[in-house]
């Protein structure tokens, strides 16, 4: 196992991208158990300058967050996201899988194409399965890069998720009786579908 731990260590150190257990397995000699080796390795790096982090179903080594001040040189300037983009991202993360119409219902305004495109381009969101509702609208979900960027092990670790759920704020509660702007909804869904087609090619 010590040897397998060394191998996992070497592979994780060598790449910037998170690596899945399956990929580790395929690169290590036959019969290795990278999942177990990862448990040991993660423990070994506890409290050190770099950490073994789980990101979705993949693993990566990242510097400890408290040492960020040493890294001004490595800091990458990310494009500032608009408020609309940030809110849309949060809604997708907390409500996923979520349709464009649902995002619009929560924000109370239509979601511009540019906002979604920006998040797709950052690879923080991607298309999920279509909803089994009329029109079969496409949904959005967050990606592994999103988890990686925000240092989340999985989407269940989102801050305050439990409280929001307990407060019923993540429920999809339809408006009683008359629904506001139901005509525009259809249009939006069509637009969303148009986009998927673009992306599915």
């Amino acid at each position, binding site marked *: 196992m010590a040897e397998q731990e060394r191998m996992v260590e070497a592979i994780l*150190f*060598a*790449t*910037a*991208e998170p690596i899945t257990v399956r990929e580790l397995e395929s*690169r290590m000699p036959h019969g290795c158990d990278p999942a177990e080796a990862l448990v040991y390795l993660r423990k070994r790096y506890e409290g050190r300058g770099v*950490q073994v982090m789980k990101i979705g179903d993949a693993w*990566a*080594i*990242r*510097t*400890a*967050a408290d*040492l*960020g001040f040493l*890294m001004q040189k*490595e*800091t*990458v300037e*990310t494009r500032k*996201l608009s*408020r*609309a983009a*940030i*809110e849309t*991202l*949060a*809604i997708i*993360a*907390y409500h996923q899988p979520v349709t464009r119409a649902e995002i619009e219902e*929560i*924000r*109370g*305004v239509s979601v511009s194409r540019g906002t979604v495109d920006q998040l797709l381009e950052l690879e923080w969101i991607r298309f999920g399965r279509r909803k089994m509702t009329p029109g079969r609208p496409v949904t959005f979900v967050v990606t592994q890069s999103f988890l*990686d*960027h*925000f*240092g*989340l092990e999985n989407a269940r670790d*989102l*801050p*305050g998720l439990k409280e*929001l759920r307990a*407060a019923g*704020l993540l429920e999809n*509660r339809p*408006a*009683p*009786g*008359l629904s*506001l*702007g139901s005509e525009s909804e259809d249009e939006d869904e069509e637009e969303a579908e148009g986009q998927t087609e673009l992306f599915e090619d």
Partner: protein
Amino acid sequence: MADDTFEEDTMSVADRLAAEALIIDVDGYEGPLDLLLTLSRTQKVDLRKISVLQLARQYLAFVEKAKALRLELAADYLVMAAWLAFLKSRLLLPPDPAEDGPSGEELAAHLAFQLERLQAMRDAAAKLMARDRLGRDFFARGQSEMVTRVRKVTYSATLLDLMQGYARIRTRDEFRPFIMDRDAVFTMEQALERMRGLIGYAGEWTDILSYLPEGWEMDPGKRRSATAATFAASLELVKEGHLEIRQSENFAPIQLRKRDEPRDRTS
């Protein structure tokens, strides 16, 4: 209505200033829900305890002011104003038992829910963005090593390949120059030749299919080819005046008969 005016008059100077400041910022709002959320903050209570009636009044006052200042309000602000006016009337009037549909309370509760949810999402977004982030607070490996791809080729061959290969060599002496392997094609020339030999016996109307060469009836590919060739050959023979051909209706059997006297060219 009198109630409204009264309320507006009792607005403090600070509230009025705040309301005016809101109007000047109207472009800064992301739609009516965003504006409602901002207005609700002036109530200085927990969103769950918000007075929707009061909020509706605040919003309607806002729209009135905007009109007075001749500000162009987008259509959705006006739609919301109309809806809030309706909501206000439902909340104020005693419920009409004859009327169905959701009660004013239900509508108000849903609006409160929407506002609370939007606020919750904003808080969540802020918390998310405040997290330690890759490339800002923690970092990935700087010198990643290239993973070289090693391509390993395995060759496959089956016993059949092997036997065919050997057969190919052993039949080399019997080598034939290249001809197209068109086993399943019956040519029109072949059909013509065959038909010429047979039409002498066709005194009665006979189905064209009975002229198909032997061994070509079963395999669909062969049958198709033979049928087409036989039909083309028949037409050719009709043209030459050796045959008569008829078909009672679409897709009915096509029948052939020998033509004894030379065909009248003018018909």
